[in-house]
């Protein structure tokens, strides 16, 4: 076992039986040595806050909370605690802060960067029991939810109001978890990301203070009042505090929606089409790119029969009249760029099936090499540099001889390669990491970022330093120490 921690006797025997996936640990995957102890005293005190049934040191529970959907190996927290309200969260934070115990907020565990892995052990704070939808203001298009509410739960609740919360990262993630990673998704091209759609947050700081980033009850479309603390916490990946409530911007459900898939003779053609469409100022609902490797995976996993070629998955939404015009213009642009084989999906069932299959693409890619875990890249560049970075990335993937299906929110200049990783094959792991790093460096050279929406988590810490620069990182670290002087909040993430 590669953990070097003093562990209380009553936990030692259960830890001996923990099975980790066999893998040669690459340098940056070694867990930091730490002498963190979650003492039996602390566990008792935590029990006192939430009750015996809301805290667990059971191996199975800790294992579930020690990994997300990424390739990063499981790192067990010492215990998992379930909070039922903000006061409990505050109390828990104080106890952890006073004992310098790492504290990791947990939403749904659907992240892709190892954000919740307890690499320094500690307490995993599961917020799923705080699952109330507190208010929906239909005329003002806003809703306030607790930390445990997932986005599909909210949209199901809203379905007869004609409103929806459109940010769609694929997984049924918790909305506050989406705030923490500044999530985005296939709809960002039309609705933006979490950054643009959070009006207010209730946050618990490591010292237990509870506050609202825009002031209690505020839910205006815009504000100039004081520092923008709301957007400081959006994207902070649990390193500054715990988000316990979010007030979100809602939108009207589009009147008419229709989807189409179009294939192209080359990646360049598909990407050029995207750039042209956006430069025409057309308000697409979704515009997604899949390369031929991804389409092949897609066909096999979701039982479709799409043309195995670089393709664009498009969704048009609007009122009756505007839709036809959009479809006309986009079809022309696609054809101009060699696009063909338009497949339309108009009925709700067909469209839902299509987009579900698109969202299942991670699993589809893993199925290409059964037993794999996903290593995903997330580079994002200005639209005009997109063809460049995609083509260069494809070259790197081909040269390395690895499976690298490419899927992307090309409308935002953002795309992912979901490498299936066999963690027991260190050579493959290293090859993939090298390619991913190269891709991020290319993107950074092209005025882009190494992560458009997944976050820094565990795997991109060095890339962040390069991207923001020394001064920027030192400013970030200053902010971190102002909020969390004892570094208990999700230690080891975002910064090295």
């Amino acid at each position, binding site marked *: 076992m590669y953990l070097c921690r003093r562990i209380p006797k009553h936990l030692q025997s259960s830890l001996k039986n923990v099975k980790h996936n066999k893998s040669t640990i690459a340098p940056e995957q070694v867990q930091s040595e730490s002498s963190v102890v979650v003492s039996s005293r602390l566990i008792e005190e935590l029990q006192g806050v939430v009750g015996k049934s809301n805290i667990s040191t059971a191996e199975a529970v800790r294992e579930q909370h020690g990994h997300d959907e990424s390739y990063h190996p499981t790192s067990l927290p010492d215990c998992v605690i379930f909070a039922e309200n903000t006061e409990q969260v505050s109390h828990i934070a104080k106890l952890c802060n006073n004992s310098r115990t790492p504290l990791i907020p947990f939403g749904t565990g659907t992240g892709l960067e190892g954000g919740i892995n307890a690499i320094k052990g500690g307490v995993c704070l599961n917020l799923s029991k705080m699952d109330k939808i507190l208010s929906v203001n239909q005329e003002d298009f806003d809703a306030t939810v607790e930390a445990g509410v997932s986005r599909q*739960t909210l949209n199901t609740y809203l*379905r007869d*109001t*004609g*409103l*929806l919360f459109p940010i769609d990262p694929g997984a049924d993630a918790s909305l506050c978890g989406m705030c923490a990673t500044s999530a985005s998704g296939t709809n960002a091209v039309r609705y933006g990301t979490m950054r643009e759609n959070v009006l207010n947050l209730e946050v618990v700081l490591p010292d237990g203070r509870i506050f609202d980033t825009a002031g209690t009850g505020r839910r205006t479309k815009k504000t100039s009042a004081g520092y923008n603390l709301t957007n400081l916490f959006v994207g902070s990946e649990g390193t500054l505090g715990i988000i316990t409530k979010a007030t979100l911007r809602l939108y009207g*459900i589009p*009147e008419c929606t229709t989807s189409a898939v179009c294939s192209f003779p080359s990646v360049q053609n598909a990407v050029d089409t995207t750039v042209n469409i956006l430069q025409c100022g057309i308000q697409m609902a979704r515009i997604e790119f899949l390369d031929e490797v991804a389409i092949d995976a897609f066909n096999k996993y979701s039982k479709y029969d799409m043309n195995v070629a670089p393709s664009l998955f498009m969704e048009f939404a609007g009122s009756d009249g505007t839709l036809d015009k959009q479809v006309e213009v986009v079809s022309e642009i696609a054809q101009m760029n060699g696009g063909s084989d338009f497949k339309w999906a108009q009925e709700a069932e067909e469209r839902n099936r299509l987009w579900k299959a698109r969202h299942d693409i991670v699993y589809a890619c893993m199925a290409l090499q059964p037993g794999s875990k996903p290593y995903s890249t997330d580079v994002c560049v200005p639209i005009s540099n997109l063809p460049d970075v995609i083509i260069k990335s494809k070259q790197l993937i081909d040269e390395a001889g690895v499976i690298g299906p490419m899927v992307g929110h090309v409308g935002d200049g953002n795309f992912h390669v979901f490498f299936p990783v066999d963690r027991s094959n260190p050579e493959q792991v290293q090859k993939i990491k090298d390619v991913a790093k190269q891709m991020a460096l290319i993107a950074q050279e092209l005025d882009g970022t190494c992560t458009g929406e997944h976050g820094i988590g565990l795997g991109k810490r060095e890339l962040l330093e390069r991207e923001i620069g020394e001064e920027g990182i030192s400013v970030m670290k200053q902010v971190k120490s102002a909020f969390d002087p004892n570094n208990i909040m999700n230690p080891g993430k975002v910064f090295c």
Partner: protein
Amino acid sequence: MSAYRVLVGCKRVIDYAVKIRVKPDKLGVVTDGVKHSMNPFDEIAIEEAIRLKEKKLASEVVAFSCGPTASQETLRTAMAMGADRAIHVEIDGKEAETLQPIHVAKLLSKVAQEEKIDIIMLGKQAIDDDCNQTAQMTASLLNWPQATFASKIENDNGSFKVTREIDGGLETIKVKLPAVISADLRLNEPRYATLPNIMKAKKKPLAKKKPSDYGVEVKAHQQVLKVEDPPVRQAGQKLETVEDLVVKLKDGGFV
């Protein structure tokens, strides 16, 4: 081929996503302050009726609900999805609690006759009582054919070819119209009401009626004696050996 007139029944029930709690007096479940919405199977029925209209097979879709005043919200949702008008049979809170499928079936058959309906579309069952009786009773009262648990409906020159989900698999039958059809889960995926349609629905006609307008009595036939939670799940026991397991099974009288 003339276009059909469709009557769709919608029931206002506790929203399917809500965690149900039993009332302290154990005579029912908590409904105050709890989110209510249209019975999901009724949403599917409305959607199918609207699709018939879009295919020009139906000329008018009338939504129907019986219950307290709040049922009108459900009818507005039906109209926002595309129903042309609605009929609300007002039944006050107390009587609504003891309303049974037979009462609803009687009302539906009277309305169908008055409105010269060709197709009655219902959800297969309501998610609060799970009775699964209204469609069958209505067909019987009207002496109309019934196609229940419909997962696919196809037009067949004055009749309908309906695929039904049954225990053994799928059964396809031909139903002459007028008929009663009950919608099962896989019939379609209902559309969401959009804001402009919700606005328009506010202006669509909603007729307010009473059971006496149709000569139907809605007196309670039954009395709920008790409503209880299912027993709390007991913790399992981990045993070391097969021998221990056999002893435990013998002691428990299982072998």
